[in-house]
Every structure is written in C-alpha cells, then in structure tokens.
C-alpha cells in the first residue's frame, strides 16, 4: 500500500519531471531559434547599412587617395596610397580659398537660423495661443505654403529682388527666413506649443504678464526642444540648399559652398577628382556633425511633422 503509494507518487513526480524537462527543452529550442532569427536579422540590417553607407565611406576614403588610385581601386583602405594632398589642392583650386566659401555659407546659414527662430516662433505663438479674426483661414493658408514649390515663385522673386538691388547679396536668402516663409517650422512649433499646459500662461496673466512677456519668458524657454529642431533643420537645409543660392549669388566672391562646388565640378577634368571629392567631404562635414549632435531632435521633428 505504502509502497504503492510512494511508487505512484514517484511515477507522478517522474511524469511531472518529464513534462518539465520537455517544456524546458522546447523553451530552449524556441530561444535558440529566436536567437538565430535575431542573428540573421541583425546580420541583414548591418549588411544593408554598409551597402547604404558604402558610397559615403568610399568618398571619404577616396578623398585621401591620389586621383589615379581612385580610378583603380574600389576598396576603402587607402593603404600605401594614403595622401592628404587632395585637401590642400582642393582648398586652393578655385578663385578664392575654400574657407572663403565656407564663411559665406556660415553667414547665410547663421542668419537663416536666427531668422527662422524669430519669425516662425512669433507666428506659431499667435496660431497656438491667441484668438483672432481669420485664424482658421490663415492657418490653412500657412499649411498650403508648406506644399508650395519654390520654383513657382522664384521668377517674380528674382524680379523683385533685382529691383531692390539685392541680387548678388545674401539678403534674398536671409530676409524671407526672417519673414517666416518656412511654414513647416511654424507648423512644427504650433504643434509643440499646443502641447504645453495652458495653466502656466494663465498664472502669468494673473500676475499681470502681457502676451509679449508670456511669449518670451514662458513659451520660448519651454519650447527649447522645438527651437532646437528648427535650428538644426534650418542649418542642414540651408547649408545644402543649392537652387536659391545658385540663382541669387552671381559673383565668385559671394559664392557659398554648394555653388563653389558646382563651379569646381564644371571645371574638373579627369585629373582633379581627388581634390573635388575632398572638398565634397568638407561640404558634408558640418551636416554630418549636426546630424550626430542633434539626432534626437531630428527624429522627433520628422516623426511629428513628417518632412524630409
């Protein structure tokens, strides 16, 4: 009886043990296949990332190779061919040394960033916090201007700026930013300001603050993330912008980096590709730097408003 009982118990225990073991084995197998699956996903993603980045890495590598090696060797490692001479040659290849164009670009970009921050945040405050006649209509108009291609307005803009004597100055590139013509950033900031609690405004108003002070003392400090996104995007887009700079800047001493690069590429023969690629690397450097520094803001910016 007792033996029987213990026997059954033992059998039961054994059965349970089998089942547990079976389950554990299955779990282990599942985990292993999951690990393998994950390994292949990562391998695929990394390989794909390398293919995506290869052109950029190749450009960086080629900028350190003599031109004839660029045409010979598709690899990334310059090895014995290594030379930094392309940078020196490229720097002085054009009418002005390359830093002349970099400074011009920085002037345009810096002023554009300041202009967008001021102009767009003011407009955004009005749309997000104030009630006024025609608000819905103006907001709709603002959204439509985001979609408007610059090519549609460039001809009359050119005529206008020509009449003002602004051609071949930085003004046609900067003044529109101060006048908040980049609706995208207004939209971005409106979305952000709408998310801020209104209690703060109310409290400030009870304390006797006017709108100017609420805007400047409360909304602006709280909107720093949106302002950072605006500043970074403005920097990158203006730095890369070619069309407007090509049209409005006509003499080499006013050229910005993209326009200078374009004259470089037009005058390039088979022999000067090394210096040309070196200067292209220089041109992409600041964008890459801002990308590294501001990824968080960039990703949030596109995710909430969705433009390149």
């Amino acid at each position, binding site marked *: 009886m007792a033996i029987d009982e213990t026997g059954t118990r033992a059998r039961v225990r054994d059965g349970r043990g089998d089942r547990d073991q079976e389950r554990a084995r299955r779990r282990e197998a599942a985990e292993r296949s999951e690990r393998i699956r*994950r390994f292949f*996903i*990562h391998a695929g*993603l990394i390989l794909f*990332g390398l293919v*995506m*980045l290869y*052109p950029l890495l*190749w450009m960086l590598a*080629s900028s350190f190779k003599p031109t004839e090696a660029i*045409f010979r060797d*598709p690899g990334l490692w310059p090895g014995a061919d290594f030379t930094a001479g392309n940078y020196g040659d490229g720097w002085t290849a054009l009418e002005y040394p390359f830093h002349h164009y970099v400074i011009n670009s920085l002037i345009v970009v810096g002023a554009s960033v300041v202009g967008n921050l001021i*102009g767009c945040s*003011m*407009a955004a*405050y009005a749309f997000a916090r*104030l*009630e*006024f006649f025609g*608000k819905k209509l103006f907001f709709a108009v603002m959204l439509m201007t985001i*979609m*408007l*291609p*610059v*090519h549609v*307005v460039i*001809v*009359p803009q*050119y*005529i*206008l700026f*020509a009449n003002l004597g602004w051609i071949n100055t930085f003004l046609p590139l900067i003044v529109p930013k*101060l*006048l*908040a*013509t980049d609706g995208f950033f207004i939209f971005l900031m409106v979305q952000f300001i709408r998310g801020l609690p209104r209690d703060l405004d*109310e409290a400030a108003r*009870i304390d*006797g603050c006017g*709108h100017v002070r609420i805007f400047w003392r409360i909304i602006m400090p709280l909107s720093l993330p949106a302002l950072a996104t605006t500043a970074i995007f403005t920097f990158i887009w203006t730095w*890369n912008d070619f*069309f407007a700079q090509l*049209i409005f800047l006509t003499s080499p001493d006013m050229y910005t980096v*993209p326009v200078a690069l374009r004259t470089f*590429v*037009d005058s390039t023969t088979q022999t000067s590709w090394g210096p*040309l*690629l070196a200067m*292209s*690397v220089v*041109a*992409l450097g600041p*964008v890459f730097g801002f*990308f590294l520094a501001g*990824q968080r803001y960039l*990703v949030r910016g*596109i*995710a909430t408003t*969705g433009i*390149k």
Partner: protein
Amino acid sequence: MTAVLNNRPAAGADRGGAGGTGGGPRLPRPGREAAARRRRESLTAYGFLAPWFLGLGLITIGPIIASLYFSFTDYSLIGGADWVGLENYRRMLDDPRLHQSLAVTFKYVFISVPLQLAMALALAMVLDRGVRGLPLYRSVYYLPSLLGGSVAVAILWRRIFGANGLINQILESAGGLFGLSPSLPGWVSDPEYALGTLIILNVWTFGAPMVIFLAGLRQIPRMYYEAAQVDGAGPARRFWSVTVPLLTPIIFFNLVLQMINAFQTFTQAFVVSGGTGGPSDSTLFYTLYLYQEGFGSFNMGYASAMAWLLLMIIGGFTAVNFLASKYWVFYGD
C-alpha cells in the same frame, strides 16, 4: 457670430473669476469690456504675425500673382514686360523640350517614389519588431535623407556611376571572377541609364519616410496582431489585413509628400548633367528646364508660364491624392 464672440469671453471671465478668488485682479467683466479684450488680443495676434503677413504678401502670394501676370508677357528683365496674351502657353504646346522635361519628371516620380516608399515600409516593419539597437539602425538609414539633396552627394553619384567609376570597378572585378569582361556603359553619360542613376539616388533617401512609418507602426495596438494570430492569420495575412489598413493614413501622407518632393528635383540633375539636362535631355527635369529658360535665357515670361503649369500639376496631383484617399485611406471609426 456675435453669440460666439460674446460667449467665449464670458466663459473666460468666469474662469478668471474662479481662479482669481485669491484676490487677483480678474473679476467677471461686463460683455463690452470682454469684447474690447478680444479686440486687443486680435491686435496682439496680428502683431505677432506681422513678419509672417509681410512674407506671405511679398515673398509668397505677391509673386504667385505676379508670375500669373508675367506668364502672359514677354519679359527679359531689360525694359518692360510686353503683353503677348496666351502666346507662352501656345508655345508650350509645341515645345519638344518641355514635353521631354515632363516625360522625364513623370517617369522619375512614378518609378522612384513607389520604390522609395516600399523600401521605407519594409525596413520600418523589420525595425518595428523590437530589434535591439533600433536608434543606431534608424540613424544610419536616415543619414542619406539628410545628405541626398546636396551638391556634394550629386558629385559623388556622378563619380560612382561614371565610366570608370565605383560601380563599374566592382562589376568588372565581379565579372573577372567568372572570366567575363563585360563592356559596361558610363551610366551617367548614357541616355539610356542616366535617369536610372537619379532614381537610385532618390530611393537611397528612403530614411525620412521610414522614420515616419516607424512612428505610425508604433500606433498600431499589439492586441490586433494577437487577435489576428489567434484567428489563424499568417504573417502575410496580418500584414495585408492589419498593418496596411491601419497604416493607410501614414502611407498617404508619405505618398503626397514624397511626390511633391520628387516633382521639385533639381540639384541632382543639375550637377550630374553639368546643368544641361543631358545626355540628350535624358535628365532634363522640369525644374531644370525652368531654370534654363528663366535664368539661362532670361525668358521670364515663359518661365512664369512654366511655373504656373508646375503649380497646376502639383496642385492637381495633391487634389487627386486627397480625393482618391477617400477610397483607400482608413482613418478608424
């Protein structure tokens, strides 16, 4: 309207009164004072909007109207604009380069945007499954979107797809492994392939729509997938019956944006072709031709007419997209 105007300030005053019981200056006000306050608020708002209004008038709407006027004139910046009626538009009808530029642009838009979005969605789906290191992958894939429109990358493309460029070097050594020595074209200098290289460039910048897709995928409740799985739906079925319908607003948004962007492509074509739109006009994008007419030949009248045609095309496409969206975009209920 007056009811609305009177109601809101009254509500505001109530709130002010309730909040200000601690002795604040805000007490319930009579209607007239509230109306005055509203007027003041409007004025303040217009003050904040002053730069924007100025920009809208001078930089945006003014030029749109002006370009409509110039499109009916012959104007070369020197002297006045001569009214020529519909002449510019008539010239468009039998301008072979204009037709070529439209063909190039449409081909580019209709091939590159779907490819780019498919790539973006595919990668977003893979990354959405809780892959470790997501921020890193996302950044790597997003980087080309930031750089893709620059002159430097266009130069790079011209070099990579050149006659003795990177692509041909790789293909040659790959062919060499099998004892082949294929005669390879200079991709950017061959009218057959030049546009293709620019399409690849646009597909390469799939990162921006991918980030938007990722944000959209996050919004789909896991529950739906679990329910579908319990009901026996496989991965393909779950994709088509759960992911796609719930993602349609995002797909639509990306489609409109990327199409508008693609219609405006300029820099890449300009740099790769050296400003000509060559070889034999195979990369003569619409915007490039507009630039040549307006700022190469200073036919401001004709360029204005072209600008209006572009506005019509983009407006038309956006409208069609929005109308069609009623039939396939699912906004939930």
